[in-house]
Structure formats: C-alpha cells, structure tokens
C-alpha cells in the first residue's frame, strides 16, 4: 500500500492547480485521473484525422493572474498567442458589430451614439464587477459562522461600494439581480449588442436573458481577465490542452506524481476522517488528506459510503441542479470559410450568432420543456487560423458552442442528436453561406456526450448551475460552502466549488490555500 500526504482525485485543471500548490508546500502529492490524459475538460483532442480542437472550453478569458503567477505558468509553456481576440456579432445578411480589446474597449460597425452608450454601460458593469471580484480569490464566508477574514472581506466590499458614491451604490444594489435583457434595454438600442449581452449573460446557464439574475452570468465573465485586461479573451496556442500541459509541467516541477487511467472506486472513511482511496481495481492508496476535483455530487454519492454522510447533506447535494444546456460542435473544414462581411483578421476571434435578446430568449424557450432550440445561439471560433498546427495544411477547424441543448432532452439524445446537428448546420450555413460544402467531418458533443466523456454529471461545465442560489455562500450547497466537507480530511477543489466553472483555476487555487491553513 503506497501512501501520500495528499491524493487529488481528478486531473482536470483545478485538480492540477490544487495538487501543484499542495506539493509546493513540501507535501507528497499524487493525482489520480480516470482518463488516459490529464487536463479534464481543458483538453485538445483530435476529432478527425489531422484535426485537433479544444474539446470543451475553447476560449481562455478567466485564467486568474494569481494562478498564472503562483505556478509560473508562462515559464511552463502557457502562451496566450497573439493577444486579445475580438468578438464579432454574426447574422445572416447583417453587418457585424466588432468588439475590440477587453469586451469592446473599442467598437467597429456601430453608430457613434450607440458606441457612446456601450462605453458607458461597459464602464458601469466593470465598476460593478470590481466590487464582486474581491470575493473570487477567497473561500466563501460560512454564514452563521463568520470569521474575521470574512467580515473584513465584506467590509472591504462595502467600503469599495461606498467609494463609488451613493447613486452608483444604489444603482448596483438595484441591478445586481436583474436580468441581462432589461439591463441591455435600459442602455442600448442596437439589437446586435443586446443579443451579444443576452448570450454572454446566459452562456452555460439554464437561464434565458429575461430570466431574473441573468446579469450575474455577465459579471462572472467580466470578472475574468487576460494579461491585465478585464473581459478580454484569447484562443490559447495549441488549444486548451496546451493550458493543461503547462499546468502538468508546473505540477511536475512541484513534485506531484500522476497516475492516469486510474479511476477511483471509493474514498475510505475511518472514524469520520478520510483515510485512503481505493481504486476501481481494488488497490488501496493511503493519504493524509483527500482532495476531490470531481463534481461534488459524484464525490459523495459515488465515492463515499453514504452512511458516513448526513441525510440533509445528501438531500441538498442531490438537489443541486446540474443539467447542462450547451452542446459543442466541431467541424473539420476543407478550407477556411469565406465570411463576406468580415475582414479576415476579425475571423480569428469569437463570432457570436445571437442577433437580439429576443432571439436568445426564443432559443431558451424550448429548453425549459426539454427540447433543443430550433434556432440556437452559437459562439464559434476558427482556432486553426491563428494556430495552424490544429489542422492539416490549408484546412480549417471550426469550434462552436451551441445553446440551448438541454441534458434532459425529452426525446432523448440518441435520436435528438442528429436533428440538433442538422438544425445547427443549417443555421451556420445561413450565417456563413457555403460552409456546409466545406465540411469534411462533423462532431457534436451533446451534454450527454460531455458527461460520458469527461465524467461531468449532466455534462455541466460548471459542475452545477452557477445561479444565485448555488453560488458564493451556497456553493456547492447551502450550509456547506467552500472546500471543507463534513468528512474530515476530505476537501473539494473542483468547479462545483466557489467561484465556479470556466478555466479560471480559482477553485483549485482557493482550495489549496484553504487546505494549507487547515492542515498546517
């Protein structure tokens, strides 16, 4: 029986970050990964001969600077490529609006009065995000049991709020739980910009732009930054797998050992404390502490003897909403598509098909009742334009996030998948005429596929809906916020914990820091 100071279950990006930081404190740390490769959903996969793509997340916009700095990721090969990628609105026949820099620092293709309104709204949202941002890098406060740090953190938020002035403070309190469509309507008149905000507020959430609190999704995006630019995004060189590789190198340098193709069967609890990890093949690995980067529900209902857990705790975990609503489309194209309306340098970023708030809301409607969007909202990238290694010479990769595609599809994804693929391709063809005849191979990952392939229940990339009732002090569940669990010596560090999903590394960072204070 081998023994480690810490075993990290799950070699996704948060698991790798937690492992690396724990190892740097001098602990003997081992990462166990069920699949053959490390990185989890941060991966680059070959989906057709010679065509590689970031299989889940395809844009990097949230990797936190503290993660990059503390693990020296740039020295381990993390490269952001040619800088902030633009966002372009795309629609059949319409002229695009182009957002440059950090979430539209500059706009092209928009009336000057609208550009001024955008500038004002963008600045307002960034100021508001600035209030919330401080909560990203520390464990969520435990309601009913606040410590000094929590009170200081609330105090500093309150102080920052007051410094904005009374009117702006009131405006923030008024807006924080609003829906993104109403916010957009209050400030803008251009449907393309409103549609983009509607899309970004709801992306990855089971919400439509008119669902209350959908503004929070936009705050979450704007809290991200790239190289100090808030709201910016890049297509990582080598795809998201390259980000994972840099993390693996950093973890290796810190002394972490890895075992891939090693699914865990259970976590053994002795006298209320996590004592060891038993692999599916029966091997037992002893550990001082166990850190799970898996989904919180999976961690407890699949790996821990249910008798070790309280009924109310399990009830809340089982009620945690985690039905994904997003599909991923990968196209292997013979050559880059011609997008008439768009200069080629603007095709290197992200192109969003969400022509209005209503469009996104209508896309959401069927998802409420277990059907996919007839006209889905789509975010597409052509990553091989800036990284030719991703496709054979002259060919092109298209990577698209398509929503809404509810995990609980009424007719089932076995028959629904082909229909949704057809709807999506038809829609893409109308926005990018001539695209379909370039398609050499197409792969659609439904939430069911994402669940099976990446062991993410519900195919949900946040490991649980990131909505007001499941975030911050209620993440993963109310009464058990943060990285501690009822089982002593068992911690969580995945996207199911605060602050949530996306390739930010923050759950891993916060968890490791918290564990180091607990297990000194």
């Amino acid at each position: 029986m081998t023994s480690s100071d810490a075993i990290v279950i799950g070699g996704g990006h948060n698991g790798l970050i937690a492992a690396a930081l724990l190892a740097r404190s001098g602990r003997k740390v081992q990462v166990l990964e069920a699949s053959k490769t490390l990185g989890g959903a941060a991966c680059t996969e070959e989906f057709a001969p010679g065509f590689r793509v970031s299989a889940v997340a395809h844009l990097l916009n949230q990797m936190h600077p503290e993660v990059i700095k503390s693990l020296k990721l740039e020295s381990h090969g993390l490269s952001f490529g040619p800088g902030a990628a633009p966002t372009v609105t795309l629609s059949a026949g319409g002229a695009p609006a182009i957002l440059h820099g950090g979430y539209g620092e500059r706009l092209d293709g928009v009336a000057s009065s609208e550009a001024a309104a955008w500038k004002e709204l963008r600045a307002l949202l960034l100021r508001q995000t600035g209030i919330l941002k401080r909560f990203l890098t520390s464990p969520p406060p435990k309601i009913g049991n606040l410590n000094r740090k929590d009170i200081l953190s609330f105090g500093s938020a309150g102080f920052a709020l007051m410094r904005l002035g009374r009117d702006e403070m009131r405006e923030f309190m008024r807006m924080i739980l609003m829906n993104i469509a109403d916010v957009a309507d209050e400030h803008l008149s251009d449907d393309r910009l409103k549609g983009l905000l509607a899309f970004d507020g709801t992306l990855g959430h089971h919400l439509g732009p008119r669902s209350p609190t959908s503004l929070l999704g936009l705050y979450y995006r704007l809290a991200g930054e790239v190289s100090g630019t808030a709201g910016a995004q890049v297509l990582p060189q080598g795809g998201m797998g390259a980000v994972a590789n840099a993390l693996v190198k950093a973890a290796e340098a810190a002394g972490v050992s890895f075992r891939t193709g090693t699914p865990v069967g259970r976590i053994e609890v002795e006298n209320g404390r996590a004592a060891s990890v038993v692999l599916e093949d029966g091997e037992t690995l002893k550990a001082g502490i166990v850190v799970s980067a898996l989904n919180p529900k999976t961690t407890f209902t699949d790996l821990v003897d249910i008798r070790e857990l309280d009924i109310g705790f399990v009830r809340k975990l089982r009620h945690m909403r985690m039905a994904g609503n997003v599909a991923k489309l990968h196209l292997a194209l013979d050559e880059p598509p011609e997008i008439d309306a768009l200069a080629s340098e603007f095709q290197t970023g992200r192109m969003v098909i969400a022509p209005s708030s209503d469009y996104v809301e209508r896309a959401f409607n069927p998802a409420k009742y277990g059907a996919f969007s007839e006209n889905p909202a789509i975010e597409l990238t052509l990553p091989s334009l800036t990284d030719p290694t991703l496709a054979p010479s002259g060919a092109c990769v298209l990577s698209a996030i398509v929503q809404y595609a509810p995990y609980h599809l009424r007719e089932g994804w076995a028959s629904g998948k082909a229909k949704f693929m057809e709807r999506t391709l038809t829609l893409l063809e109308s926005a990018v005429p001539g695209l379909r005849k370039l398609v050499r191979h197409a792969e659609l990952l439904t939430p069911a596929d994402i669940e099976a392939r990446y062991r993410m229940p519900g195919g949900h990339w946040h490991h649980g809906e990131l909505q007001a009732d499941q975030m911050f002090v209620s993440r993963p569940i109310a009464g058990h916020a943060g990285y501690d669990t009822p089982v002593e010596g068992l911690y969580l560090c995945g996207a199911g914990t605060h602050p949530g999903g996306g390739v930010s590394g923050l759950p891993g960072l916060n968890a490791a820091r918290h564990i180091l204070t607990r297990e000194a």
Partner: protein
Amino acid sequence: MGSMRPALLTVAERKAAQGHIQKIKFDTPFQPRLDALMHTAEWYDWAGYRAPHSLWSEELEYFAIRSQSALFDISPMVKYRIEGPDAEAFCNRLTLRDVTRLKPGRVHYTAWCDDSGHVLDDGTLFRLSETRFRLCCQERHLPWLLDGAFGFNVTISEETEDVAGLALQGPTSCALLKAAGFEGIETMKPFDIREFAHPGGTVTVSRTGFTGDLGYELFVDTPRALSLWDRLWETGGPYGLRAIGYAALNTARIEAGLIVANADFITAETALRADRARLPDEIGLDWMVDLKKGPFNGRRAIEAARRDGKARFMLVGLEIEGNVPADHAIIYHRKKREVGLVTAAVWSPTAKRNIAIASLERPYGDSIVDDLWVEIYALHELQYTKLMKRAKVVSKPFVKLARRTQTPPGDF
C-alpha cells in the same frame, strides 16, 4: 427505494381522496367502540384523529392504569414500515442508538436527529424480523426517511392507517391477556415482541407502554381492529378493564418521567424559531447517543456541540412544594433570575407529590440546582393567586414500579 403514492390524475380519483374535507378529524379503526363509551364528549386532536381526552372520568381512568387494566387507542401514532436487506443499516444511520444490538423480536426507545444534531422526534423502533422494522413516532417523517433511504436497499412506507394499535396497561393486563387466550404472554420480557393468533391472522404484541406500569401494546391490521377490541373487552370485566383517554395517560407518563414530542421539547422540523430546536443532550436523551456504533445522522454535530459546550439546556424532573400543578410555569433562580420553564406538571396520585418535567437553561439544572423556584399562577374566579414555590431537582422516574419489569408478571 421508498414507495410513494402515485399522483392522482382523474377527477374521480381526486374526489375520492378529498373525503377528509367532509370530515375534519379522522376516525380511528376503534371509533365505534370509543363512541359507545364516550360520556364526557371530551375529544382532542391527535395527529388529525379524533381521540378521547377522557371518556368518563379522568381520575378513575388514571386509577385503571395503576390498579386494574386500561385500554388506550394508539392508532393515530405514526407508523413506518422499513424493510429490506439494508433495513438494519438504514435504521442505524437514522437513529441514535445501536440498531445492530436490537435483536429480531425486540423493541427499543430511540430518537433521531437532523444534520445539526437537533432531535427530529423520538419513538419506538420495533425489529419485527432480521430485515423488517416498524418505527412509531409522533410526527410525520416520510420525506426525511425516503431521502435517508438513498443508497440503501430498503423500502419505506407509511402504515399508520393500515395498522391499528391498542395499549393495554395496568397490573392486571398480563392476566387479562392470558385469559383472552394470549398463551405464554407471561413469559414476555419488557421490550419483547411476539405474534399471537387472532381470527383471520395474527396480532403483534410488545411488552411496552407509556405508563411506567406493566403493560402491552397490540398491533393488528385495521380490518381486524374491532374484533381485537371485542376480544379484550369481553374478557376484561373481571380484570377491571376500562377504556381511557389521554388525560389519564398523561398523568401516568409524567410519573414515569417519559417525554412527549412537541410538549416537552419542540421537534426540529416543526420549530419555527431557530433557537427552539434541541440536541439530545438538552432533553435528557444523551444516554441514547451511542458514539461506539459508528456514523449516524447528526453525530458530527452532536460531538462538536459536546466538545464546544454548546448544549444550552437541560431537561430535569422537579418536585415542587404544595399541591398546585405548575403547568408551563416559569422557573426562577433565587426567585429572581428566569432560568427555565415547566413543560409538563401534575399532582402525582401515586407518588403523592407535586411533580414536573422542566427545561432549564444551563448551568441551572446541571451544576446549579439549589434555590430554584416556580411561579404558579392559580386562577380562581377571575383572580390570580400567585404562588412562588420551592422546586427541587429530582431524578426521574418519579414513580418506579417493580411490576413494570417483573417477569412473569403477577397473576390475578
């Protein structure tokens, strides 16, 4: 997994299920017999059922318990059937005591807690066989039990309406049952369960009760409830059998020092105010908490509360000077400082003492037990007489009867 009623879909089905609107209180399976014996018309609501507070005379009903045999309808008691290969493991995780030590054919008194260690209810757990249990209690818990069944190979259903229950309590109860054909009843030890023949099937008898006296509880399928009553009633004459209501039982149970959920403590799920929920250690159930048995619901919280000295209350027995029952009276230390409340009080006819069960805020009742006073307001013809009576913390039960446990019990 646990079974639930299917959704009622058709109008006819829904209408049929709305009978309770016509009847504000349910009848128990013994209602025809109770109705025939009811002289005082003093009914009360027991979990939605019409139950007798008294039938003819509170005092004489009490003395039936202590001197003869008393028959009390316990059908409204909430009953759950827990069955399956993991039934023992399920019950052991649910409740405070060690269920692995509860043998088939035995009952134990137990309690269960929520995640924060607050008591959800107390009750009796019957182990009817290796894999089948019956949990009897005051409050309804099906959602909690079903959620608790996740991960266990166990079926849980409520059987309150399917199983009728009678408590037969008193010194002649064993002899009465023997005379009624319950052969070998005298060999049953306290907390034993045994099946006896009864026309059309069997009746399950346990040597249990809520009186601190010799007594039995009998459970039978609802359709055969009346025939069981008649069987006892026809034999009962020479044994002084009387039907009784809750008032008499309440006096007996206070004497026995037994507590009642939502009378002596507020159950965690029904408490509206956050500070009303109670840990086992705060209602005198600390002895149930078995830390040797492994994990169970609320264990971590209870251990943490003990470690951090978070148990704020204490449930104690009080002996109060004078003879005026101190129901819901405030308790003072040095006649000044409010330190607690009487939850149940009675003049004990058997102990001939003025007794009470009371909740005190620690350290009162724990390390400070002297100089306690009870403020009793006796209302006499629209004028209160305020009494400040000295109270002494005493051990429970207030009345301890050898015949409760004696085996075989005395014959009559």
